[in-house]
């Protein structure tokens, strides 16, 4: 467990960009965008095919990011201009992207074995063992920089309008923001980050597969919710940190779960769904339990006051 912990954390950090993307749609724009399942693969596929064709692996990441941006743009247009429900727009794009991803990749999977990616190869790692730590620090710093850039963006005039769109769209329209535009910007940026994450994961694991994005939205939701439960959301800085670190915690939980003897790797999706269900039910149940408790206490107090007053009158 301890030996593999750095690798688990690093993987969680690569997926953290995906959960930051999910945070933008799920928490800021207030709907879960299922495009993520498709756009994660789009990112992985674009990165893999570009690398195979000899492009610089960093350029491949830029390509992945823009591929995701474009996918998000389509979902955003369906949702705003096509006036299709957000959830359904996402599903439609997810299905369409499945075919598109096949076209992009040409084959169901692409191996990057023995091909240069942004990560050092196994032989390089053998020659310089300390590279593992260099990579780890670089990934952590890279994710931190992207998180901070997102924080800054969410504090600009556009960013404020984007946040207000999910919070009170009638209000932000009355102050002159076009909510169609802010939604499209949010969904595009979200899927750009998701695809960037897909590109990184493909490079780190050494392959891209058309099914690599299946269930990704649920993993993203799980990460965001776990992060929020642990780190809180008192402001944007904490909320994005929670989304990013939630992804790391999720990977650690999965790693632990898979060590349980009677669980198999194929149970992963079920475990993920279970985590999301628990994370959604527990806070809601806690809240209603707390409020009914307060109400009962208050009622008892009032009864006591009433009795005391009645007693005085009789006396």
């Amino acid at each position, binding site marked *: 467990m301890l030996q593999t912990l750095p690798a688990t954390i690093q993987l969680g950090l690569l997926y953290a960009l995906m959960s930051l993307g999910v945070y933008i749609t799920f928490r800021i724009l207030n709907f879960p965008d299922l495009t993520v399942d498709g756009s994660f693969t789009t990112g992985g596929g674009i990165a893999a095919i570009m690398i195979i064709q000899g492009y610089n692996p960093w350029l491949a990441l830029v390509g992945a990011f823009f591929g995701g941006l474009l996918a998000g743009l389509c979902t955003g247009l369906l949702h705003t201009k096509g006036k299709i429900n957000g959830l359904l727009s996402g599903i439609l794009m997810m299905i369409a992207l499945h075919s598109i991803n096949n076209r992009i990749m040409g084959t169901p999977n692409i191996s990057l074995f023995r091909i240069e990616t942004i990560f050092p190869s196994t032989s390089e790692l053998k020659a310089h063992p300390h590279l593992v730590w260099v990579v780890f620090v670089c990934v952590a710093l890279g994710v931190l920089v992207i998180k901070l850039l997102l924080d800054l*963006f969410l*504090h*600009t*005039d*556009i*960013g*404020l*309008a984007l*946040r*207000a769109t999910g*919070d*009170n769209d*009638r*209000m*932000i*329209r*009355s*102050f*002159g*923001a*076009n*909510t169609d535009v802010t939604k499209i910007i949010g969904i595009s940026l979200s899927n750009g980050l998701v695809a960037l994450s897909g590109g990184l994961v493909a490079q780190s694991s050494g392959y891209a597969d058309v099914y690599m994005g299946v269930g990704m939205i649920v993993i993203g939701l799980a990460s965001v919710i776990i992060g929020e439960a642990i780190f809180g959301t008192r*402001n944007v800085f904490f909320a994005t940190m929670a989304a990013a670190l939630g992804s790391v915690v999720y990977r650690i939980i999965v790693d632990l779960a898979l060590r349980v003897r009677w669980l198999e790797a194929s149970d992963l999706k079920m475990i993920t769904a279970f985590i999301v269900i628990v994370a959604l039910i527990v806070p809601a149940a806690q809240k209603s339990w707390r409020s009914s408790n307060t109400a009962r206490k208050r009622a008892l107090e009032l009864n006591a006051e009433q009795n005391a007053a009645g007693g005085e009158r009789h006396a």
Partner: protein
Amino acid sequence: MLEMRNVTKLFFPGTLDEKVALVDINLHLNAGDFVTIIGSNGAGKSTLMNIISGGLRPETGTVTINGTEVQSLSEHKRSEWIGRVFQDPMAGTAPNMTIEENLAIAYARGKSRGLRFGVTHRKRVFFREQLSLLGIGLENRLRAKVGQLSGGERQALSLLMATFTKPQILLLDEHTAALDPNRAELITRMTEKLVRELRLTTLMVTHNMEQAIRLGNRLIMMDRGRIILDFNEEEKKELTIEKLLQEFEKISGHKLSDDKMVFG
């Protein structure tokens, strides 16, 4: 300043539920006018507001603001000229954002939104100064989330956000109706002060007859989608609630009824 010509609005046209909301409305407001609007339920007061703000499009007729025809412009485009406060204290602010962020959103009205910081040090100084004019201590809570404020505080903030960029037209849609009497009075006083100091052209829907007579320089009464009474400043000075009710019954042929109407 504001000109409405032959404006008609239908809801559910051609169905059994067809409802005529406004019929051939003609209304002209001069710059600086403060007009109060009263009328029964379903008289068309809110529809009138929504036609001006762009929330609804009229079937026929034109709406002109400062010489520009706006009836086919979308709500967010018109907001450059129009400030608005809604009845629901929740409607005018973003609850999960801070007071200063809400003010920054309002401050960007009519400007193009770019990648500059929404809240800067300079703006914060300005926001604090503006908030202190409300006199309810919000200037010390710039970083509090608006969702933590009371209904009255939120409505005061909404009012400030709607006015401090000096819009051409201010629309107030029963903006004190959801508050308790003390809070409502406070917000009414703030409204009077802001409208006077900024010389805003204002349309205010109210269900409070006393308020409708006391505030502003013109009073309009609506019934069944029409403007049936229009008192100018001189006539309004002579007006009492009894006179107003008598006039209403004489012209409309039925009693004024509004389940929220306050007569005193």
